[in-house]
């Protein structure tokens, strides 16, 4: 694993959030360092997706703060946070079924305010990272397989050339081999461009292989943080997940 550089790009401090007054996460102090892959694992309902949504502005925090590159972004909109160089690959399939892949990419770049003259180049850049997308660029997303839809979702997130990528369980519904194929180019890109990635996963073994650091979440709180190797060796925790 690559050493973790020192500068935090995304931080939360005593973050708490929930739905309808019911707290789901609380007291979350988390830092994503520049250029690292941080893997977050935990059971269903542990609060992983809630944390990601709160970090990305999709959910208003009840307490605490979120900062990007030291700038307080607490309570700001997803658009504001995206403007800071953050992109999110949401849980499930981050595609619009009635749109074609070309349209999803066009809408993604429009939303990210990518200059018109750069859009073709951006699409080429993503297609070089995930070349298989070329085969189904003009098909409606509803006609794609789960793996293809996940590639489109990741490709769309990359179109804004983010510095920070939040990925919420990209392996859901995918065969392990397909998940490996999906992660490999992302890992290459991360190493080449210094991308910082927060990867929420239940497919623990595969996710830890590409991670620099890991955290474990349980009942809305972070209960463990350390080296992925340590986690792999920790039989008690590995049995849990």
């Amino acid at each position, binding site marked *: 694993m690559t050493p973790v550089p020192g500068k935090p790009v995304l931080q939360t401090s005593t973050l708490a959030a929930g739905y309808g007054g019911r707290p789901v996460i609380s007291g979350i102090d988390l830092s994503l360092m520049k250029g690292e892959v941080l893997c977050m694992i935990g059971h269903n309902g542990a609060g992983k997706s809630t944390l990601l949504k709160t970090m*990305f502005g*999709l959910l208003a925090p009840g307490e605490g703060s979120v900062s990007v590159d030291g700038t307080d972004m607490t309570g700001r*909109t*997803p*658009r504001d946070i*995206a*403007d800071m160089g953050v992109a*999110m690959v*949401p849980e499930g399939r*981050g*595609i*619009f*079924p*009635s*749109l074609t892949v070309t*349209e999803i990419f*066009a*809408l*993604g770049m*429009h*939303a*990210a305010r990518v200059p018109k003259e750069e859009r073709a180049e951006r699409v080429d850049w993503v297609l070089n990272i995930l070349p298989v997308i070329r085969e189904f660029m003009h098909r409606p997303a509803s006609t794609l397989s789960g793996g293809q839809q996940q590639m489109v979702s990741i490709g*769309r997130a990359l179109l804004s050339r983010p510095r920070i990528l939040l990925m919420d369980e990209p392996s859901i519904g995918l065969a392990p081999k397909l998940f490996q194929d999906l992660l490999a180019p992302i890992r290459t890109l991360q190493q080449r461009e210094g991308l910082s990635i927060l990867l929420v996963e239940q497919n623990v073994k595969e996710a830890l292989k590409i991670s620099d650091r890991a955290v474990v979440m349980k009942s809305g709180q972070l209960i463990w943080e350390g080296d992925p190797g340590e986690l792999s060796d920790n039989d008690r925790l590995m049995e849990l997940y």
Partner: protein
Amino acid sequence: MLAIQLAITGLQTGALYALTAVGFSLIFGSTRIFHFAHGAAFVIAAYFFYAAFGAGWGVIPAIGVSAFGAVAFGLLLDRLVYVPIQRHEGSFFTVFVASFGVGIAVQNVIGMIFGRGYVTVNTTLSRSVEVIPEVYVSPLAWIAIACAAVFLGGLGFFLKRTHTGMALRALADNPELVRTFGLNPRAIQAAAFAIGSVIVVPAAIITSATTGLSPAIGHHVMLISLAATIVGGIGSIPGTMLAGVMLGLAESLALLVVDTQWTEAVTFAILFAFIIIRPSGLLGRATAH
């Protein structure tokens, strides 16, 4: 000759139904808001035209006033009624009751200002001329069909080729994901109301010069819009267009076999037939999404 005459009349009616219903379908399909007051937007557009044209403003300024009235009504209703209900996570039924109430209020206000009886815009364009022996068509019929073709074609292009159009389709698919993209669902929703309201304007104006207006016409407009949306397939704009034309033709051609008092019943017979036999409609998806 009677069948040809009825078919042409049916096409005119169908074109107006399509224009009216597509506005409702666009709003409902993209926002899932049951905009019952869509009929009120029609009434406002029609009476604003009637008032401005009657005051001697000329056709183009009167069309502008009509469009302004319809769009302003749609946007204000969205901003002042629907958005607050959504913010408080109000139910589908809450939205329906609020919208129905606004529709009734508009009907009464229009009735107080313009009277409750029928009014008509007088124009030479509504005078029929014999196009082939025993078949009479008014220029307004051709204008109605041309308006429907231009507006509905334009809407199709808009939804397919522009970012706002794509965003409207995206909103229909998944509002949460729209936010994840960094788009503003409220702004897209407002666009749906503006476009859905403005597309009703040509139908409202042409109706004011053909069958005439009454404050209560909004209910008929809404029922036709709802029927066309269901028959066409909920969420399908092309389906709604097709269903609007089909219902207009069916109402008119039904005169070959039934009395005029039964023509409206034909629409609802078709609606019930679709609900029972093909609930997904002409071009709708077989399953909910």
